């Protein structure tokens, strides 16, 4: 299996003209992106009052996800780091406005102006340091901090992500929490390695007391139409309202360490009458970590 895109090149280089072309010509890619965008918009749960909103599409790429927003009548601003992908979006005459920018540098938007944000398959790129000047933690901090600021009070952000591993997932979640977001992760089809999709659903207000603010993932009885899913699947909703507590390290008991303590113990044993090796320069010496 080929390596993840995130490990092959920085996004502005990986998404060159050739790759960008796929996003116009490959019906499979278009279909997947459309599905993910529909789901993200659904999770955004905007009020059903017929008033168009101003939304943000982070990592909008060729505008596929933005088109879903336009189809629902909303105005949107798309941000992407790849000029080639944005050129495709211009070609496709998308209705949203496009910005060439790096989300890890912070979103250059005024506070409280955005009614909602989606992101399809983009935020995990922040976890890789693509330049020597990059520090993923700082970039995630800049991104989530500026996102929190530019969203209006009851707005949500739904970020569909492909974290490489548990650490990345944790890193993204922690960065979001530190910025002030509440919310959780919705996982669709959690047990299918092919269909599994993760959505970070973030809210700006204080966390609500019930867990109902974070919807259930697809993959439970009667909830999905996918043949791969067996009947006894469970949804996975991980609420992350509190900051993650760091695991407690095993505390070392300083009373029972050190050369002095060893010498004392040996002396005790000798007094008892045991056979104890002689005290040498090797007694209680620092050994290699493997011991």
């Amino acid at each position, binding site marked *: 299996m080929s390596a993840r895109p995130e490990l092959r090149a920085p996004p502005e280089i990986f998404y060159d003209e050739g790759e960008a072309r796929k996003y116009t010509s490959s019906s499979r890619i278009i279909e997947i992106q459309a599905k993910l965008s529909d789901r993200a918009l659904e999770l955004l749960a905007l009020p059903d009052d017929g008033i168009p909103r101003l939304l943000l599409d982070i990592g909008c790429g060729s505008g596929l996800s933005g088109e879903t927003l336009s189809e629902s009548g909303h*105005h949107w601003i798309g941000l992407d780091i790849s000029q080639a992908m944005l050129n495709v979006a211009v070609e496709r005459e998308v209705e949203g406005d496009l910005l060439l920018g790096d989300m890890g540098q912070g979103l250059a*938007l005024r506070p409280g102006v955005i009614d909602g944000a989606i992101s399809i398959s983009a935020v995990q790129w922040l976890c890789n340091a693509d330049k020597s000047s990059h520090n993923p933690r700082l970039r995630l901090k800049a991104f989530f901090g500026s996102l929190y600021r530019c969203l209006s009070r009851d707005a949500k952000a739904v970020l569909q992500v492909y974290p490489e591993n548990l650490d990345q997932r944790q890193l993204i979640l922690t960065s979001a929490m530190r910025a002030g977001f509440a919310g959780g992760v919705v996982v669709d089809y959690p047990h299918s390695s092919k269909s599994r999709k993760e959505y970070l659903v973030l809210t700006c207000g204080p966390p609500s007391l019930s867990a109902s603010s974070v919807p259930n993932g697809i993959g439970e009885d009667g909830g999905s139409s996918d043949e791969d899913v067996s009947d006894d699947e469970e949804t996975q909703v991980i609420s992350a309202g509190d900051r993650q507590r760091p695991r407690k390290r095993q505390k070392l008991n300083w009373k029972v360490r050190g050369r002095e303590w060893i010498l004392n113990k040996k002396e005790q044993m000798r007094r008892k009458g045991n056979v104890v090796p002689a005290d040498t320069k090797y007694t209680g010496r620092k050994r290699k970590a493997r011991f």
Partner: protein
Amino acid sequence: MKLLTHNMLSSNIKGVTAGYPLLIEPQITTTTEVPINPNFLRHIFPKLDYSALVAAAKTLGFSDLPETAGVSDLEDEGFLKRFHHALLELKLEEGALVCPESGRRFMVSKGIPNMLLHEDEV
């Protein structure tokens, strides 16, 4: 880039506090026709910096907007039409956005502003 987006954009260069609004240096401006939606206009009006919109529209050649406007103006069809035109129908295709504090220019090409910061500006 529509003026709706311009109204939300701010310069986030390190050390800059007054990076809004970005000044526009237009080279090519176009006008498109967009169906008017009064619901959206009324929803977005409180979020806008209206004076910045008026100034931006002027630089793009549209001076028909009143200098000040309040919520009551949103009921007036004439105002709504002009407001709609300035906000959503005027587009900057080529030109530059200038940070009012640092003077740094963000080029606009094919309607896309380049907001990428250099490493020392982050």
